[in-house]
């Protein structure tokens, strides 16, 4: 699965996710990537793209949970990401990337690694796999 989230200079957030799914999956199997609110979500507050065990991400409506924790729970971006990954996945393994409407970037994963990269206007840039 691949994904991208961005916030532009006007403060607009957007997210996109794309995948081939599971190797040896049944034909017709639908995972989390196309499900808005599960694998992908964006609103004024943030944008999120998820990857990992699709069934666990669907059960936990992971992407929307990050936004709801910020909207209703008043959490900051990284705190919302951490809570969603650490508390909402039950036994599932997954990761996600997120940006906020005010230019922050965050990621979290409970698998042993995640292919990821992030950059911000103030010059921060990171590409990493492991913790």
């Amino acid at each position, binding site marked *: *699965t*691949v*994904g*991208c989230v*961005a*916030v*532009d*200079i*006007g403060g*607009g957030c*957007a*997210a*996109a*996710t*794309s*995948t*081939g*799914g*599971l*190797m*040896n*999956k*049944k*034909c*017709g199997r*639908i*995972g989390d*990537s*196309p499900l*808005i609110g599960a694998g992908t*979500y*964006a*609103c004024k*507050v943030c*944008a999120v*793209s998820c*990857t990992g065990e*699709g069934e666990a991400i669907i059960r936990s409506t992971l992407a929307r949970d990050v936004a709801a924790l910020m909207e209703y729970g008043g959490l900051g971006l990284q705190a919302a990401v951490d809570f969603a990954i650490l508390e909402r996945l039950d036994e599932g*393994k*997954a*990761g996600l*990337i997120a940006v*906020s409407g005010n*230019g922050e*970037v965050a*990621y979290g994963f409970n*698998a*042993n690694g*995640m*292919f*990821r*990269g*992030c*950059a*911000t*206007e103030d010059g921060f*840039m990171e*590409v*990493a*796999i492991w913790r």
Partner: protein
Amino acid sequence: MGAWAIAVHGGAGVDPMLPEERQAAAKRLLARCLELGAAALRSGALAVDVVEMVVRELESDPIFNSGRGSALTARGTAEMEASIMDGRGRRCGAVSGVTTVKNPVSLARRVMDHSPHSYLAFHGAEEFAREQGLEVVNNDYFITEENLGMLKLAKEANAILFDYRVPLSAKDSCGALAGAAMSAEGGLQMNGLPISIYAPE
């Protein structure tokens, strides 16, 4: 004016013994896509245009599990899915079960921008792609030798490999090496297979 930011991912869960060269190749692709997106944001592009552009790049490179290089169904075909969401107005588009659309994320974008719906699937999504004049290719465009090898491995293990790849060399070493790795990793498993046989993603 606010500050821009961007993040990309290529999958979660990585084989701890993934060859260095594979790790470096994955990082190069992520860095290239990040630069592409950052340059667009710096010049004032909208976030929704940037995420579509970056995911198209990732779909076109077989390193990760999307577009070209997608994981295969039990029948050995590629069946892809994608979604996009614009936080401005919470507009969204999604597709599933696409088998000939070269860039599924762009079809998801067309669903969002040029249809009264949010989600189209299978033959409906394929029909809409042709109505919209999107580029379509044969399903074998998406299929790589590496993934055919991984599918064979998954069938032998009678397992569904979760969003991962197995380096061909690891396939040969799946038995003893995986066994050794299993003990080394304390038996960490994913979908019934030792984590050591998993590769990028």
